[in-house]
């Protein structure tokens, strides 16, 4: 990916012969992830079908661990922040922290995605016939109308196989995930808007496909994918339009150049604010901040649960990484003109998330609304524009992401014979059937509600402190009220699980496979650790600001 844009940049600069310096050691984690993604595509092509799953899982996990290890080694050397690849990427402390967060969350997501024991054969569409090219006749096969059936043909029957009775899942989801993760890493390191846009597409396109890959409930899953794609494309268009206007304003797409232009120039403010507005709308969409959240409940609901976890955690990290960088680097000087708009957005997001979350009867949709409320809290941290706010938001992102993935991990375990039982009524009395899972989920929900000794509390605490320091007391008061309202619907689930009688034909709790267990354990342990001993992480998050 990096290389493609690289080529483009060089071509634009016709006469320059000297290639731009590249700090390979700094961008190695991205290169590792993207390289492994390419490799994974080749694995799809050449490795025999029965080996694909194990090779892909091994490759993905090794990649993430290797990239993480490199990152740790690099970060321990306490590097100066730098920009590389002709100033298109900025590798500074927030970038490294975000990359670390993304890799940890990516690892947990891949573990969830890889699990094949909860849903026999894996939660993703089965391998269909040998060739993926469907003949026109097969695709149009006999259905006489209804759009529903035309969107979602019944899953193709699994090819008969001697070894396994259940068709293996499609393993394309692993390279897609890696590509998306690579895009996210570039997204939050991008130092100019064009790179940011390309990264945005690189992270989004695989996600659209991944949303539509659920083995069960194909219709919902594909509806989610189409919705996400259409709205995502719309948001990308907003971003691009904003980019164009800002280029018109500043004469450059580099964040630092825009910052220079905003600091005392006589240029047209209309271009600046129209451009900023459109740009931010595109970013807020990705971060599922209300009122740009319309896709969130449907997509979270329809996508395979493991992918939902990946989206909820990683996409949010990437989007807020980019929002932080854009606001801090490019628009700090003009913040007096726009900050009240984002105040409003944060309030709207918190209110929508908390209030509509109350009315949900599906657990995945409920978590989706809770993520909208959390996005509001994150936005509060992001618009403080102080170093404290920056580190607080980074910490919150890590804390929220880890908890959320574990939440979706638990959700994927509660099933009936028809797949996951996401309707709330199915969760009643869960503690009687499976006390351990119920207590784990209770702990995670309390973390989302922000009860002390969980990462959720620490996250809220640092964000609200930073916001109060920055003089945003009214916003913090609203946020506190919103968290109290949100606590109500978390509590509702706790009540359901612990104090209601189980439904007679209720779901069973699958014994989680090793992968899911690992992911959930990781989530719970990190949630607890960040709640009790947050200091090391907070220190790392607060050692420096952005470079540009």
């Amino acid at each position, binding site marked *: 990916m990096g290389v493609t844009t690289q080529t483009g940049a060089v071509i634009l600069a016709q006469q320059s012969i000297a290639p731009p310096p590249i700090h390979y050691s700094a961008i190695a984690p991205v290169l590792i992830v993207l390289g492994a993604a390419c490799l994974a595509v080749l694995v799809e092509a050449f490795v025999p079908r029965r080996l694909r799953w194990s090779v892909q899982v091994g490759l993905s996990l090794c990649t993430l661990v290797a990239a993480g290890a490199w990152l740790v080694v690099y970060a321990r050397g306490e590097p100066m922040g730098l920009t590389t690849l002709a100033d298109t990427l900025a590798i500074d402390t927030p970038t490294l922290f975000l990359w670390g967060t993304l890799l940890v969350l990516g690892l947990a997501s891949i573990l969830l995605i890889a699990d094949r024991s909860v849903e026999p054969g894996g939660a993703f569409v089965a391998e269909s016939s040998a060739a993926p090219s469907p003949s026109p006749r097969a695709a149009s096969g006999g259905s006489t109308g209804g759009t529903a059936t035309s969107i979602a043909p019944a899953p193709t029957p699994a090819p008969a196989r001697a070894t396994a009775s259940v068709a293996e899942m499609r393993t394309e989801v692993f390279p897609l995930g890696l590509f998306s993760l690579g895009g996210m890493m570039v997204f939050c390191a991008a130092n100019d808007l064009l790179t940011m846009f390309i990264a945005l597409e690189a992270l989004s396109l695989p996600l659209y496909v991944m949303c539509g890959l659920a083995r069960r409930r194909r219709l919902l899953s594909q509806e989610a994918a189409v919705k996400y794609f259409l709205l995502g494309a719309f948001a990308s268009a907003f971003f691009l339009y904003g980019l164009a206007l800002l280029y018109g304003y500043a004469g450059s797409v580099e964040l630092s150049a825009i910052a220079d232009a905003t600091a005392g120039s006589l240029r047209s403010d209309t271009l600046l604010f129209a451009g900023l507005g459109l740009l931010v709308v595109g970013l807020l969409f990705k971060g599922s901040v209300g009122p740009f959240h319309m896709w969130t409940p449907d997509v979270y609901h329809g996508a395979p649960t493991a992918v939902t976890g990946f989206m909820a955690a990683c996409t949010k990290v990437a989007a807020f990484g980019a929002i932080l960088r854009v606001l801090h680097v490019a628009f700090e000087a003009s913040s007096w003109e726009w900050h009240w708009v984002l105040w409003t957005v944060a309030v709207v997001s918190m209110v929508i998330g908390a209030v509509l979350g109350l009315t949900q009867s599906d657990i995945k949709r409920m978590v989706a609304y809770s993520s909208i409320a959390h996005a509001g809290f994150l936005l509060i941290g992001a618009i403080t524009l102080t170093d404290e706010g920056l580190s607080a938001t980074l910490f919150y992102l890590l804390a929220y992401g880890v908890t959320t993935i574990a939440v979706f991990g638990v959700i994927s375990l509660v099933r009936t014979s028809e797949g996951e039982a996401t309707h709330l009524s199915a969760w009643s009395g869960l503690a009687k059937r499976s006390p351990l899972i119920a207590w784990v989920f209770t702990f995670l929900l309390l973390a989302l509600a922000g*009860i002390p000794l969980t990462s959720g509390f620490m996250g809220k605490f640092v964000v*609200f402190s930073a916001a109060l*320091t920055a003089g945003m007391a009214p916003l913090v008061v609203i946020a*506190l009220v919103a968290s109290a309202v949100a606590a109500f619907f978390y509590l509702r689930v706790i009540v359901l699980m612990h104090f209601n009688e189980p439904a007679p034909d209720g779901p069973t709790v699958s014994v989680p496979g090793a992968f899911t267990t690992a992911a959930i354990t990781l989530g719970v342990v990190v949630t607890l650790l960040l709640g009790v001993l947050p*200091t090391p992480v907070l220190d790392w998050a607060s050692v420096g600001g952005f470079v540009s």
Partner: protein
Amino acid sequence: MLSLIVFLPLVAAAVLAAVPASVGRRVFAVSWVVVAAADLALVVAAWIGYDPSGGMAYEQQLPWIPTAGVSYHVGIDGLSLPLVAVTAGLFLACAIYSLRQTHRVKSFVLLFLGLQTVSQGLFTALDLILFFVYFDLSIVGMYFVIARWGHGSAKRSALTFFLYTFIGSLALLLGFIGLSLAAQPHTFDIVALARAAPLAGSGAYGALVLLAIGIGLAIKTPTVPFHTWLPPAHTDAPAAGSAILAGVLLKMGTYGFVRIAMPLLPETWRQYASVVVVVGVLSVLYGALVALAQEDFKRMIAYTSVNHMGYIILAVGAAGILAGSDEQARSLAVTGAVTQMVSHGLLTGALFLLAGILYDRRDSYDMSAYSGLAGPAPVFAGVTGLVAFASLGLPGFSGFIAEFQIFTGSLASATVATALALLGILITAGLLLRALHRVFLGSLRIPDAPGAARDFTDLRPSEAASILPLLAMAIAIGVLPRFLLDVIEPAATALIGMVGR
């Protein structure tokens, strides 16, 4: 030492959690008693080793989140030591009382051990965030106690309790952050903040911070008009849960006033002391009047709690009014407030356990359904009578010592309010006597309950062993108050010195 007191129950809980529930409920119930007794012994040892004139004792400070100015800082002085002792005593009483518990004993014991850590931790915390952490966790723990082991509409009451007090805790957090941000450098350390009093002369900002903290604490205390969660929570909670809720958790609110609101915001406190006094008097009168109208024995006790907490609020408010009173009177008011916390903890704890016995025998708290219980259950009637007399402030009991000091201390600075509050005592006396009269005297009448014995069984040994020591302590304080007052008075004087700055 303090950390040992605080975390002993938690460690015990962790060990017990590893024991399978199948070994039988006795194992858990008995080990709970042992742990609670050991904790009480530690507290007694700490009390013996405590030097009243020395300010903070047993201090310990470890860095926790240095970047945010948060540390693990514990210590006790004359304000907190009595409350730590009451907490240990009440938990031991609940442990003994619950020996007969049969329903889900393991998780019950684990939860209460956790709650004990949380409560002891709160009273020893000298860091605002540490205080807040315990404050919030107490809500979560008590929520599960009410929802799981409660009766009636327990789930609903527990939810009300959680949401109401959770909102309060968030207001508290807001106030704490606001307080720490005013200090240079930012810190959450209570001792350091008390020394610096960062919001002196800050006008509206200080008022807002005090408002946030005040609302947070007032909800927990609870005072009128934030008390509406209390009656349902008490009514539906199990007996031991009610005892802890009233005896310990309510003190968290009032303790917060003397530990945080007064010394950390002295100037603002003085400014708005009259508001506090008004709220206190309203709580006294409203609590008493509504209690008078109750038919439900437990609900009635719950409202008398509102009334008793009102005296404390009145006292701490009066201690902030400098005009017309000398330092000694104000110090007396604070001493009375702390004594009242101790006394109320012991007596209301005992009353709720007694109410639990009523429910245990006949599944009902309805006072009109009972009559003449003194016949079949003379000991029960006698103990209840004594506790009720102690509670209404009869001389010779701890309630008298507390209320006498409160009124004497407050009279000079808040004359009208104190006079009004005295009415509260009259009403409480009336309602408690009326309740005793209805339930214990007259001809025998017992409501039917399926599966219950025909006679009304008198106090069982374990019940007596849990309730009588509480009563004995109340009498001891009533007759020989010096051992308690010697501890409280120096701390109260120091506090008045801070408020008077």
